[in-house]
């Protein structure tokens, strides 16, 4: 197992490398002089020159790339001019908040989505199936930012069950109950789309598995139907559901950008949008590379989970 994990980690290196190249190439598309773009309207000729020297912007592209990569590997993501702070520090701070939000949502959508898919498949064409299918259609069609706004309107403004926005109360203790009450609405809003997608795919994965011969064997053994569904069929269906979960984690992470805007959540997504509007290119670059790298590592964890579930995968 340890060998397998190591192997997967090693295989991530070219992917990480590729990611850095892609980000670098995209950033190289910036029209005009990069130093001016990075410094924005604050640029003075001296500053531009200094930055050019610091970043090696006067050197050829390939050389510049490796300087940039070398700096990042050493933890130097550059300095954000709009915040006057090291990019990595800012990204790490913000990423924690995103992780809480997206992580909660991911757990929610995995559990709810799989459960809904299983129930839907088990009661195919029944009332529960139809209700879930409709809810799923609604869920995958509603823009999460619109849903978030409506949730604020109903549950925060009208019913006053939850705070309107933010991660912590402005006054008062920053404890777990406070976090949960702030987290509930954004986490739910963020989970809805992915729940729908997961439910849909879980349903079809379950239908596929329920036709298999080993399900008939379980029934022939006298296994109660509930256990046939939840123990035999779901376990086998998880083999095709888990990769979907991995993909959906990316969508949750993406959707977090909108939800962070709607709920004023101090996460990395809001940071990126602000940085783009401020044209703080280094901050955008650093944030994108960092989050993408984390996502690659997360997908390795998904692969490992898959190999734990399925003994037929060679580890």
């Amino acid at each position, binding site marked *: 197992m340890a060998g397998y994990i190591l192997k997967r980690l090693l295989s991530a290196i070219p992917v990480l490398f590729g990611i850095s190249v892609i980000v670098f190439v*995209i950033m190289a598309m910036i029209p005009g002089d990069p130093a001016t773009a990075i410094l924005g309207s604050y640029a003075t000729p001296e500053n531009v020159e200094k930055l050019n020297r610091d970043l090696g912007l006067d050197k050829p592209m390939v050389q510049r790339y490796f300087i940039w990569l070398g700096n990042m590997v050493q933890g130097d993501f550059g300095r954000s001019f709009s915040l006057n702070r090291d990019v990595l520090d800012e990204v790490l701070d913000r990423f924690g908040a995103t992780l809480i939000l997206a992580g909660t949502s991911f757990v929610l959508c995995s559990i709810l989505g799989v459960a809904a898919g299983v129930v839907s*498949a088990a009661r195919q064409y029944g009332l529960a199936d139809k209700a879930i299918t409709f809810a799923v259609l609604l869920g995958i069609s509603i823009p999460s930012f619109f849903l978030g706004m409506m949730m604020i309107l109903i549950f925060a403004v009208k019913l006053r069950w939850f705070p309107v926005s933010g991660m912590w109360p402005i006054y008062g203790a920053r404890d777990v109950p406070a976090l949960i009450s702030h987290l509930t609405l954004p986490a739910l809003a963020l989970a809805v789309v992915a729940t729908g997608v997961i439910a849909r795919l879980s349903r079809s994965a379950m239908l596929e598995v329920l036709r298999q011969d080993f399900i008939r064997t379980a029934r022939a053994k006298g296994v109660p139907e509930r256990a046939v569904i939840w123990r035999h069929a779901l376990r086998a269906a998880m083999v095709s559901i888990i990769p979907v979960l991995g993909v959906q984690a990316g969508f949750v992470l993406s959707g977090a950008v909108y939800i962070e805007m709607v709920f004023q959540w101090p996460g990395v997504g809001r940071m990126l949008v602000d940085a783009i509007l401020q044209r703080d290119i280094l901050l955008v670059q650093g944030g994108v590379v960092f989050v993408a790298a984390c996502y690659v590592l997360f997908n390795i964890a998904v692969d490992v989970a898959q190999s734990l579930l399925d003994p037929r995968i060679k580890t």
Partner: protein
Amino acid sequence: MMDFLRLLARNRLAFAGLIVMGVVVALAILTPILPLAPPDVTNTANRFQPVLSEGAWLGTDHLGRDLLSRLMWGTRLSVAVGFAAALIAATLGAGIGIVAGFYGGRTDNIIMRGIDMLMAFPYILLALAIVAALGPGLMNALIAVAAVNIPFFARNIRGITVGIAHKEFVDAARLSGMKDARIILSEVLPNVIPVIVIAMSTTVGWMILETAGLSFLGLGSQPPQADLGSMLGEARSALITNPHTSVVPGAMILVIVMAINLLGDGVRDALDPRLKSGALSRPMPATKVDRKTIPYQGDNTDDSLLNIRALETQFHVKNRVYRAVGGVDLRVAPGQCLGLIGESGSGKSVTALSVMGLVASPPGVITGGAAYYKGEDLIGAPYKTLRALRGDRISYIFQDPLATLHPLYTIGDQLAEAIRVHHPVSRGEARARAVDLLKSVRIPNAESRANSYPHELSGGMRQRVGIAMALANDPDVIIADEPTTALDVTVQAQILSLLNDLRRERGLAIIFITHDFGVVAQLCDHVAVMYAGRIVEHGPTNDILRAPAHPYTARLMACVPELGQGRRELAAIPGLPPMVDQLPAGCAFAPRCDMASAACKTGDIALGTTQTGRAVRCLTPHTTAPVEVEV
């Protein structure tokens, strides 16, 4: 194409989506000539007019602009941008995919590596990076959304192209000296277009949502121009005081995306029949039973354990009815072994599975007959009764244990489960009994084997596990469905003798399904021959082996002379068994029978009984009477 439209129209939800989308697109096209207020003229004195106010049906926004007008113009913009992004992504993605798939080798490798890298990003990061580089703006948002979706198309189309690139007609075109570009245009492209359409129909909704999202973040359309996303973004600050300004554009996005999703599902179902709903229906816990009459059990003095009477099982697929089992009577007593023999498709497995309600349903329906176990009718018995008997009193051994054992549980766990669902024993005890069971079917190193997964065992071992599972609760009846078909001769003989021993030792009743007379000869005291869902001959094994009375039995025996040669699928009988949805009138075997006469093809032929306990369904049976044979 007409077929496609007809299929689409049959799907009511998709049709509704089509209509909604049609209306939206029509309105979007007509927006410039509709009598609407100018969308960008501000009138701060008139700001935040509520819905249904004078001169502004949907009210006005924070700058006093007419919401209805802005909604229409915004919809026009959002839909146009979404479709444009989808078209760009589809064109470029398909182009890349076709090139990669068509040329293969290094080209393919490099391109797909790049695509994989792009897909390693959470898509919005990529879109944000592109917008960050190009700067905010609707055009740049469009480019970003299109670019992010290219990998998805490229990967899909490549897969299809790889399949096509190796087809004969492409090879032929190559040999005839056609240029690659022409082959791609004339041979490959027409075949991938349906796939492109499916992929587009399922992603357009996404792209509209995504561009609206970027606009919502302030990175897309810039004021005063507004698509639905930026309308929502601008309305956000007034969400609490004037929610209607948010609800109007938000609901519009919802309606559009939902209509597209419905339509997309419909398009996919129509173009890709494999995914059509209904093709994938799950089998119920027990076969559906729909009996008109319940046959009388017969004399109660009968010593049989399992008594199947006039069983009829059908498959209802769409409007067609397949009569898989058309009135079968069978019985077994303790210690007896009954062979049920016939070609594949003769209905022998369905007969066996019907007993415990294990025929997949839908499409299976038991339409008649009964199966009495110790006097209790199992057909139509409540699920609870069936479940309690399944695997406990009556158990099955299936063919192909690689498919019939759960791939993700160890065989020890699967055996222990078989015990624990019927007996309240501890895990440890169930485990110990599982190991004992493995030993009793002569699996070496049973303790360590119990921790193996099915795929780690050989075919013979797996079959023994299947037998051990059937024996787990010391059942009264075992129904074995071709348990030796996939095995080689030695293993087959071992398993047969194992079953034979168990029958002697435990007084098991066995119904043994096979198409191999050699196997029947070794194990069974009685044999029933099935053809086209009915029993055509029935009697003591030795009698039938010596003097088959039905022409079909005689043919079957001629095909399979020796034990262990049974892997041939009886190809030696000329002709094929009839489709059970179009049985000929009269004798079902008539089209293949040498002795068929006109009379054979008219009336129904009864299963005639002779005084020696044999039964034959034939007008002119082979006449060697069994009494004349020395046993």
